[in-house]
């Protein structure tokens, strides 16, 4: 057995005898298990509720009586945001975004009933999930367990003895790092089991689960290396501890908030109020379908009449009102898409600003990786909102087309009295959301993974420096 391994084994023996450390580890493991089951359970409840509601509204849509198609445009449809299984590992922004979206004609509504507005501020303390335990608590415990790993040997004078016996500083540091990484691995066990189970349960997510496991392993390895390096640099264990605690508090608690605050302050988002007015104004500038003298729709009428080779809208083979509805919806949807894109781009720009802080604090990179791979980040949310918008547009235009084709211009006088058969509602509203493909999730997570690997390399370099320092300081 190599010297490094013997040192690692010795370190573990010591750890087993340290009552406080063992209790701390046991508590963390219990917490991780509790977090896993809580998160799985709350995700299951959420998914079941949303699926039940989706089924209910799909059924209700088809159960509507004979109606004028435009009444169905206003009746609209609800879609519920599904959650993949990895959301149980890291729910990301799930609680901070609405999960219910009402789709109707002429309007683009917000996704509502997110937990953030339905909870007291207790939610802001964080959510008990495996991701939270590993991101925040595990490094803290690693600091407690490992800060004295080399400083202790130096304070007790055993370091000198070891070196005199011909063990190199590199071997010692490697052994200590190996031991601490082993402890970190132990902390990862509940998460690995959960991720493994998710990978088996949902094979499509297996690659993402693997990426998550690797990401968190690298994260704790960064800490293990940093802790051993600090323990080598500082003469006293206490100084190493205080420095590491400060690094943890700044990196994990302080910087993520400051980064978010700076990003929010640098580029504020417009309120819905402003956007709604802006959309309404742009629309008024384009054309008013209700105004018979409007130039845009006069032009539209001329073109339509010409295309069908008739001179009066009464002579068109289709109901002109339906065509106007479709044209109006096309215009509004174009505006909605433009404003929504702008808003999302702004949010992504804010997040890029936050991501820059990952160079100061690796937890920012880890969070990005974790949420991106779990499909619970802004990209996945945007994907849902955009796919719901596409569904809204298709649904409304299908209904408008029914108005154009199933009702005659003469027979379309009142949206209350002129109706078409209820069989038409069959199958038009069903919403099936195709979440982002696993390869897309990985691609979204890739930049953060690179940053995390750069941190690993930097910390390995730091450890190498510390080893040299160790050799010189004890000579």
């Amino acid at each position, binding site marked *: 057995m190599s010297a490094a391994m013997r040192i690692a084994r010795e370190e573990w023996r010591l750890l087993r005898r340290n009552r406080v450390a063992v209790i701390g580890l046991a508590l963390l493991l219990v917490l991780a298990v509790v977090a896993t089951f809580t998160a799985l359970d*709350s995700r299951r409840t959420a998914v079941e509720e949303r699926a039940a509601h989706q089924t209910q509204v799909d059924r209700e849509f088809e159960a509507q009586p004979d109606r004028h198609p435009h009444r169905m445009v206003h009746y609209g449809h609800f879609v519920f945001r599904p959650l993949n299984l990895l959301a149980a590992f890291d729910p990301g922004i799930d609680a901070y975004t609405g999960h219910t979206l009402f789709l109707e004609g002429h309007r683009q509504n917000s996704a509502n009933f997110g937990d*953030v507005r339905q909870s007291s501020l207790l939610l802001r303390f964080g959510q008990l999930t495996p991701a939270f335990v590993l991101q925040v608590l595990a490094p803290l415990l690693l600091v407690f367990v490992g800060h004295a790993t080399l400083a202790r040997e130096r304070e007790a004078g055993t370091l000198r003895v070891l070196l005199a016996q011909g063990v190199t500083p590199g071997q010692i540091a490697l052994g200590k790092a190996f031991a601490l990484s082993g402890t970190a691995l132990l902390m990862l066990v509940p998460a690995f089991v959960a991720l493994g189970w998710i990978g088996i349960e949902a094979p499509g997510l297996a690659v993402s689960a693997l990426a998550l496991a690797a990401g968190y392993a690298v994260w704790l390895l960064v800490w293990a290396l940093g802790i051993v390096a600090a323990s080598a640099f500082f003469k006293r264990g206490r100084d190493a501890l205080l420095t590491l605690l400060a690094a943890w508090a700044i990196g994990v608690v302080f910087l993520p908030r400051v980064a978010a605050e700076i990003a929010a302050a640098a580029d504020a988002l417009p309120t819905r109020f402003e956007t709604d007015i802006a959309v309404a104004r742009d629309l008024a500038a384009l054309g008013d379908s209700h105004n018979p003298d409007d130039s845009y729709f006069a032009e539209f009428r001329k073109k339509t009449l010409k295309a069908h080779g008739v001179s009066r809208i009464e002579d068109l083979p289709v109901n002109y009102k339906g065509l106007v509805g479709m044209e109006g919806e096309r215009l509004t949807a174009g505006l909605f898409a433009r404003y929504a894109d702008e808003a999302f781009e702004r949010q992504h720009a804010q997040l890029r600003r936050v991501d820059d802080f990952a160079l100061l604090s690796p937890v920012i990179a880890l969070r990005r990786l974790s949420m991106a791979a779990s499909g619970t980040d802004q990209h996945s949310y945007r994907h849902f909102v955009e796919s719901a918008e596409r569904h809204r547009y298709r649904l409304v235009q299908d209904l408008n087309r029914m108005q154009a084709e199933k009702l005659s211009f003469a027979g379309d006088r009142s949206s209350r009295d002129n109706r078409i058969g209820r069989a038409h509602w069959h199958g038009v509203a069903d919403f099936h959301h195709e979440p982002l493909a696993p390869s897309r999730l990985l691609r979204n997570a890739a930049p953060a993974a690179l940053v995390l690997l750069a941190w690993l390399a930097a910390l390995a370099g730091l450890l190498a420096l510390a080893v040299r320092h160790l050799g010189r300081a004890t000579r």
Partner: protein
Amino acid sequence: MSGFIHEWRLMARSRLALAAVALLLALSTLAVVLGTREITREQRTMDHLATLQAQELAAQARKYAQGADAGSAAYYTFHSTWSPPSSAAFLAIGLRDASPYVLRIRALALQAQLHEGESFNPELALAGRFDFAFVLVYLAPLFLIALLHDLVSGERQSGRLGTLLSMPGAGGRLWLRRAGLRTALVLAALMLPVLLGGWANGTAGVALATVALVTAAYLAFWSGLTLIVATRASDSTASATMLMGCWAVLTLVLPTLASATLTRTVPVRQGVELMLAQRQAVHGAWDLPRETTMAQFFRTHPEWQRTSPLPAGFHWKWYYAFQQLGDESVAPQVAAYRDGLLARQHWTARLGWLLPGVGVQAALHRQAGTDLSAQLAYQDRIADFHARLRGFYYPYLFNDVRFGPQDFAAQPRFDPPSSDEPMPVGSLLGLAWLGATMLLLGARAAGRVRLFPRSRI
């Protein structure tokens, strides 16, 4: 007094301690500045929206210059509502970053409009705000721990503990004096920017008093706990480990556990259900005989019973009648949803009697008017205003009065009451209880310092 001066001299010589206090002062200042900036931005947004709204109203008004149908005016006119920040909101932004503080509504069914969300960046909200509440709840205890964890072990390690303990009348007073001075400095570092920010923001005296009391009680709790651990721990490392463990459990682990429990025990799925039920009720009206709808409406609104019967074609009064009936049909779900939200808020406030961090969070956000209750109060004000809107339009609709320019100008305007909240006495009592208890226990522990630690922690 001379003791304190002496301690001050000692402290002034410790560069690390002074640096820590200065850093906290800087962080507290930063939090106050950022909070003020955020609230100023909100205020600017509200002013800007008021201008926009005035332009919109002026544009709408032109359509009614010759008089028109009140129903169409009610349908096309949006009215703005807003929730002005309280004078203490800059200290604790709370829910204002994720829920709307401005909302446009019109006289259609209220429940379809009331739950509309605001556009915000969810990932930034997830990270949380850097406001005074954050500095106090999370960072202040860390600074206290840094300043106090080696109170006794530092003396022990430098060999002075024996001398100190043998001095006449040493007792626990020495430790209390030393811890008291450092805690007071931490309190000053936290409160000084708050007072300046309060002066700049025109914050009500009551609110500042609440913040001072909350801060003092929270610091009392943590310095008490730090005294207990620091006077018993074998060395500085054990003391720091133990205290950081306490901090992690009290501000990270237990609140998240409590949050998970609360979410599970008080579900609020009624929100979605009321939306679904309300839509069915409103749109179902198009398929019912209009007379049935009117008869149902007259049951709850008999004052309009004796108005003229519905004409053959479309009439707005029927339209608004079923809009209102849609709201009324989901009243039980609305009440249940609200009760669920309030229950969550109440349990959080109660939890504040056990967990000081949660207590501080609850008290500060209550005082700042940025918590869930404040959000519900804003919704109530919107509902009141909406009722006024209906009350304004109905005489025109039911008595078939033409809607002219002066009527357009007479439409009700939203008028939010003063946004300053009273002192949250319950939460303050809970915090005072926690702080006093821990401080007493700390003082008792300070009286029992031994030269050699009895137990290793």
